[in-house]
């Protein structure tokens, strides 16, 4: 049984069609990457899957339950979390507070009106571990707004992990991060998801290097349609996909390079 | 019977026409700058006081009462300068802040202007005497209507049309509409927001002062008229829909006519009915009854 399933999703803004009949399934233990040129509908898809947007038609299922347009808050409770393409944080919060608020929410302690949060050692420790896990151990008392860009991004992702969801959707987790750190971040994500028993990861990613080296499956979107949905190997052989996703110009060059797994030009 | 209906509707429309001017000032500022300007009531009061002052001086200088409309309109325009003073002097510092702080800043302006008026004119009501009746009356289906009220209605309709034209035809109007729809976009288009904001706020100010100046012959300028009116104007824009000119127009009509019907039928509910409608609108149709979008 798939953990997350989308069936024939359609979403249009005015006369611009963002999603045009998208259907796919994600199963346990899968790391799925969604690729496609800008405006292919990647972020719209994430927003629909996480209930921020309601599709015009089509359904979303979590396990066997329909969750179409259920809303992020409810989904978070069910076990679907996400991170954002553009840094999305609580600027005034310290790293600790940031992670704690997520954990409190997960444990349903949000409505504890009178218990001093400082004394909740369980949560403090969990937050601490998580911070260390994401390499923020030294920065636990720094306000989020004062963190470097890369750490902000990590913090955003970490807070999503703090919910210990079954499915996590990451919208360009490495965008705005120096090329050198990208692999490191990916490693962190994978190990974290192992530790926290996260069933499957769905990510939108532009860096083909990362995509091809980490994904179990790749879904290529183009103009709101699924162009291909297959393993990295399949995809890499699929000239059409590579060319649409990466644009004609570099096409041949890259196509040959693909097997040599050399770094591709990464557009923002 | 018919006479009564005319009287009631007419008085409602008269009230509406002054409400519209102030509400329009509120709307244009909110539409473009996303600032809910509580001080628009104080502008109205200022307009009234300066109106009286201008008319009195004009009479003293021997201007026949029949021409008093000129000093009144002059007073309305004369006060344009407080627009830039407040916009450049105060508001511009908080454009990047949360709406609530901008609201509080205009509240501060309300407090200050109230005392400015007290300082200049004292507390006793100011009024012009002959002016109101000099234009005489007309009788229409047995209902006696003071011509001056017709003039006020006419001029505020005229201003409404003028604004409508300005928004639809002129470049400035296009910029305003663009900004209302999408501020970022118009900024991106390289429009100088500084200038636009200054202009828009001044326009809003003049609409308020003009309302005060035009209404004064039929009434008297009193210190608390500003604080009283803002609540009414606020009801108008909420009912009409924040930021929408059309909203200001119809909102004013609703409030004005409803009030005068209430007074004619169940005087007790005069105020209550308006607040109830406001809450009803905010609850069930926050975008307002007449256009306006965002909630």
């Amino acid at each position, binding site marked *: 049984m798939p953990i997350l399933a989308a069936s024939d999703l359609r979403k249009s803004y005015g006369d611009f069609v963002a999603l045009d009949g998208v259907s796919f399934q994600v199963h346990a233990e899968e790391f799925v990457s969604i690729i496609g040129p800008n405006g292919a509908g990647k972020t719209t898809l994430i927003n629909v899957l996480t209930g921020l947007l309601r599709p015009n038609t089509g359904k979303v299922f979590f396990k066997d339950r329909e969750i179409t347009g259920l809303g992020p808050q409810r989904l978070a409770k069910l076990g679907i979390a996400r991170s954002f393409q553009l840094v999305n944080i609580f600027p005034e919060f310290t790293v600790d507070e940031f992670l704690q608020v997520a954990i409190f929410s997960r444990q349903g302690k949000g409505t504890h009106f009178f218990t001093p949060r400082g004394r909740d050692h369980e949560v403090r420790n969990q937050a601490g571990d998580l911070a260390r896990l994401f390499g923020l151990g030294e920065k636990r008392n720094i306000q989020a707004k004062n963190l470097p860009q890369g750490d902000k991004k990590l913090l955003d992702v970490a807070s999503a992990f703090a919910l210990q969801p079954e499915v996590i959707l990451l919208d360009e987790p490495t965008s705005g991060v120096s090329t050198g750190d990208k692999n490191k971040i990916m490693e962190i994500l994978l190990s974290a998801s192992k530790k926290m028993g996260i069933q499957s990861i769905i990510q939108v990613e532009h860096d083909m290097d990362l995509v091809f080296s980490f994904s179990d499956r790749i879904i290529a979107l183009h103009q709101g349609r699924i162009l291909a949905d297959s393993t990295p190997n399949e995809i890499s052989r699929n000239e059409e996909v590579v060319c649409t996703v990466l644009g004609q110009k570099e096409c041949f060059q890259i196509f040959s390079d693909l097997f040599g797994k050399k770094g591709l030009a990464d557009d923002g | 019977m018919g006479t*009564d209906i005319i009287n009631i509707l007419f008085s*409602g429309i008269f009230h509406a026409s002054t409400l519209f001017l102030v509400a329009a000032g509120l709307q244009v500022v909110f539409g473009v700058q996303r600032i809910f300007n509580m001080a628009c009531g104080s502008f109205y009061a200022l307009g009234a006081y300066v109106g009286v002052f201008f008319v009195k001086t004009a009479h003293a200088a021997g201007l026949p009462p029949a021409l008093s409309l000129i000093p009144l309109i002059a007073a309305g325009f004369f006060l344009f300068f407080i627009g830039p003073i407040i916009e450049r002097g105060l508001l511009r510092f908080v454009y990047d802040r949360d709406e609530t702080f901008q609201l509080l800043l205009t509240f501060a302006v309300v407090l200050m202007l109230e005392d400015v008026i007290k300082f200049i004119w004292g507390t006793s009501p100011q009024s012009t*005497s002959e002016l109101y009746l000099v234009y005489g009356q007309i009788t229409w289906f047995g209902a006696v209507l003071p011509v001056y009220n017709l003039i006020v209605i006419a001029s505020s309709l005229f201003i409404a049309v003028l604004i409508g034209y300005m928004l639809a035809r002129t470049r400035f109007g296009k910029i305003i509409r663009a900004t209302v729809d999408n501020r970022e976009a118009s900024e991106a288009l390289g429009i100088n927001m500084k200038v636009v904001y200054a202009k828009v706020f001044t326009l809003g100010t003049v609409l308020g002062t003009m309302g005060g100046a035009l209404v004064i012959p039929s*009434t008297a300028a*009193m210190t608390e008229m500003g604080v009283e009116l803002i609540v009414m104007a606020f009801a108008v824009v909420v009912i009409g829909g924040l930021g929408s000119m059309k909203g200001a127009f119809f909102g004013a009509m609703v409030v004005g006519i409803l009030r005068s019907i209430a007074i004619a039928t169940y005087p007790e509910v005069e105020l209550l009915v308006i607040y109830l409608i406001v809450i009803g609108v905010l609850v069930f149709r926050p975008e307002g009854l007449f256009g306006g979008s965002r909630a």
Partner: protein
Amino acid sequence: MKKTRREFVKMLGGTAVATSAMLATHGEAKAQATKTAKGVPSEPVKIGLLPVLTGVAGVPGLAGQRAAEIWLEQANATGGILGRKVEFYQEEETSPKDTVEKFRKLTLQNKVDVISGGISTAVGLALGPVAEELGQLWLSWDATTQKGVEETMPQTKYSFRSVDNEMEAVGGGIMTAKHFPNIKTVAGINNDYSYGRDCWDTYKAVLTHFKPNVKFVLDLWPKLGETEFSSHIASIKKANPDLLFSSFWSGDTTIFFKQAAGVNLFQKMKACFCTGGGVHDTLKKDFTPPGMILGYNSFYFKWTDSWPLMKWFVNKYYTKYKEYPSYEADHAYYTLQAYKAAVEKCYAISGAWPTKEQVAAALTGIQVPSVSGYRGYTEDNRMECLFFQGITTHKNPYNFVTIDPVEIMPASQIMKPAGTKLYDWIKSWKS
């Protein structure tokens, strides 16, 4: 109205004697202030003032404050009180809450000997208990401690209240019955607060007492400080009564007449504005109709020929402020004059500067010549004075209306006696 004449004579009794004496103190000031009498401290007397300076009541408030200034000038020029110079400590009367704080400040911080002021009855209701609690002399200008038409503090020690709220309405009712005996239907427009409501109820009671089959066809309640009456006027036209009653007392009176004139409301309709005289000099001839009842409360500036003190005061006031004073002027003036008289009365007996308690005792039942005839305090510490109402006329040298004939009604005629319920008292009249 036999009662009237008798009362009137009584109140004026001894004018001949009084006048000369009064003019001695009130006549043009002698420059040098005498030094304090023995047994009297030398430092100045501190008097707290609480005038309203904003909002609707700012108009009468200002009149009161100006009159107080004139009194101060006068008093200090003629040797203060027992030779003690007088000083004012002024705070603004605003909401009951804030005014209570100001009252406490004047008492505890500035340690004033007496506090003069208070216009809003809402404020009065709050100040009364505080004055008693602090043992502070409080001489109200216009504020009572009435809840509706009933007294909440039947007997006070330190609080000296103004005349009862509904007196103008009682007078208006009597005047209406007398001058417009043939009216059949009456509409009322009054401010939407207790004073307005009490006046309307009282007026209805009084008029019904004299004219049992008058019908009351409409009552309107614009808020205090309303500036837009065309809707109200429209619905008055709809009801089309023979007479319109109103207890408006502030700027809204002027506005109402103006907008009424705009649609010829008073072409046939009679009117009784029992308190409108509060803003008499803004009631311009070009929009205020003649032939209607207008009340000036307790001060009619043109009464000068009958009362030299008023002539003196009106001239002084006019030369200083280019306006003719309204009733609040004498409410204020009298409270100060009464305090002075009471202190001197006590000194005459004890030969020492009196305590607040002694002054309070002396004030009860006092009668002093003030600028609108004799004024006094009843046994239950309510102000007593003359009330002036009349029929508006345009036959005068001013650009605003005045009244002729002038009817003078003493408090004892139109103010309910101590301890009686208003409506029982009205029923008890023989008509």
